[in-house]
């Protein structure tokens, strides 16, 4: 188990990481999700032993490894750029960590061929990386990380420079590769959809802090606070500030909704409502649904679905609707929202848990 205890990193007066505590188990895939400059790479460098935290400590299987340099740890890393030895063949690239470790050639040969097969690199073993496509180059780098048999494998946006479709394919394969090895995998990404496809656990990062850590789908469905919900939403989370007074939510523009039963216990005051774009639907109000009107800014068709950019009382919302909806800008549309999918955050940004979930 890799454990980070209150790790902070300050560089030149700027806080890159602040008070991070994490426990990562063997054989798990852990996603670090956050926008550029949230601290993902800084955190990985500390996990790898390339940097030392300004304060706090790192523990691996009960041993303090805070100051131990990277050469003495069992770590493999894959970067966004495809980093291979340009003069070596794919075979020698994959073999290189084992050669350094002084493993006999027969074992090396067996391991290289096995890993190459797993990553569909067998036909290219005799080529040099520069004669390969980007996807194949990154597979080579991944293969090298896997044969190293490290206890900790760090992947820093490994698919960011690949084509969309290739990314989709590798994303599906990676969790299988990880599951087999028993190492701790840490995977940094800026894309919420990538975290969801990978599954495993997710830690959301914002401005150098971990805002939540847990099973990926749980973090997505039940974010602990507004920042987490916003970090973990693509398209962006729709939000609106409301006032709760007794049994009513007051929205801008004199719209009121009856507070759903689950939320009745909330104190009066100012709150932020949040909901995912696919939870908005068209149509006249039905019982127990929130109904409102918004102005269309633009609509985009993805083939089977439509993204509609909306303006509602000075805020911008996105809506993801099934089917083809070509709407003209400026058009007013009727929308409904099922309150079951609401997320409510208090003035400090913390999530307010509905009564029903408290009971469960």
């Amino acid at each position, binding site marked *: 188990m890799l454990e980070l205890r209150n790790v902070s990193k300050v*560089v030149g007066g700027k806080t890159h990481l602040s008070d991070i505590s994490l426990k990562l188990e063997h054989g798990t895939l852990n996603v670090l999700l956050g926008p550029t400059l949230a601290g993902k790479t800084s955190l990985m460098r500390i996990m790898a*032993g*390339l*940097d*030392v935290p300004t304060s706090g400590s790192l523990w691996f299987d009960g041993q303090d490894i805070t*100051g*131990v*340099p*990277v*050469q003495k740890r069992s770590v493999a890393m894959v970067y966004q750029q495809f980093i291979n030895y340009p003069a070596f063949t794919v075979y020698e690239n994959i073999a290189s960590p084992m050669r350094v470790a002084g493993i006999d050639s027969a074992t090396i040969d067996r391991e290289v061929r096995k890993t190459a097969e797993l990553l569909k690199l067998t036909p290219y073993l005799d080529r040099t990386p520069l004669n390969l496509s980007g996807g194949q180059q990154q597979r080579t780098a991944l293969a090298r990380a896997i044969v190293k048999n490290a206890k900790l494998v760090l992947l820093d946006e490994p698919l960011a420079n690949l084509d969309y479709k290739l990314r989709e394919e590798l994303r599906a394969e990676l969790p299988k590769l990880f599951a087999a090895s028993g190492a701790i995998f840490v995977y940094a990404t800026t894309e919420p959809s990538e975290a969801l496809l990978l599954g495993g656990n997710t830690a959301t990062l914002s401005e150098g802090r971990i805002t939540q850590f847990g099973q990926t789908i749980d973090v997505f469905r039940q974010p602990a606070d507004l920042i987490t919900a916003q970090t973990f939403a693509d398209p962006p989370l729709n939000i609106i500030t409301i006032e709760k007074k007794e049994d009513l939510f007051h929205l801008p523009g004199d719209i009121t909704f009856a507070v759903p039963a689950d939320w009745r216990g909330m104190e009066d005051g100012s709150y932020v409502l949040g909901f995912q774009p696919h939870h908005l639907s068209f149509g006249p109000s039905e019982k127990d649904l929130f109904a409102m009107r918004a102005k269309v800014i633009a609509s985009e068709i993805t083939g089977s679905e439509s993204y509609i950019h909306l303006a509602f009382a000075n805020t911008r919302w996105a809506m993801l609707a099934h089917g083809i909806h070509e709407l003209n800008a400026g058009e007013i549309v009727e929308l409904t929202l099922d309150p079951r999918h609401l997320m409510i955050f208090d003035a400090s940004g913390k999530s307010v848990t509905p009564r029903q979930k408290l009971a469960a």
Partner: protein
Amino acid sequence: MDKTWNNKAWFMVLPVLLLVAFSAVIPLMTVVNYSVQDTFGNNQFFWAGTEWYAEMLHSERFHAALLRNLFFSFIILAIEVPLGILIALNMPRKGWGVPVCLVLMSLPLLIPWNVVGTIWQVFGRVDIGLLGRTLSMLGINYNYVQNPLHAWVTVIVMDVWHWTSLVVLLCYAGLVSIPDAFYQAAKIDGASRWAVFRYIQLPKMNRVLLIAVLLRFMDSFMIYTEPFVVTGGGPGNSTTFLSIDLVKMAVGQFDLGPAAAMSIIYFLIILALSWVFYTVMTNYDAER
């Protein structure tokens, strides 16, 4: 502490520390020692305090040499930097021409100073030198031994020939790191050749230019071998730069005290001027 530490790393830097101690610190201290004492031979030393420094700072001979040095460095920078940029801009970016140009550019850099001096000394001779003969056939009475202007021109041409390549190579490295998209965008924006240079190439080169200017300044300020070999500081004192004067004083006249004081002053001037260059250029860079 930012990086993980490794005790072995200290062993790695130990040889460098020792080398620096032997090559720089110890000699420097020896010089400091000489500069505050007087000696009449026989290893007899008398405390002289700052006397030599005061003498040096008021010596007209020193002032004249210093002025010559400043003027020389100024001319060298004024010629080599623009010329280097111009050549770098016109070098091919791809194809077989690249290695050819790079090798041609590196050649002068590989030749030792005194050999450069000897080459040009022979080259400039009126009786057998290619340059000297050509000039005299053209009716120019070229004689660096007697004409101070000719002597200066010879030393400057020598230095330009020897060192412009360094500026070229540094600028070229800066230029090739500019992505193609910048040139394409400039074409689309209808930018002139000058605008491309002013707004794309120069800003991308300014870091390497800083290094080039610093290196060329320090080196040209310490010029010794070429004038020593070719002109010997003459005619008269016209090419007697600080370094040549220093050697004359220390070796020729055996005035160790004043020579040591002069060395220290010389050293401090180079340090101070380099620092000024560096700060001015990095500040300029940061402001933009």
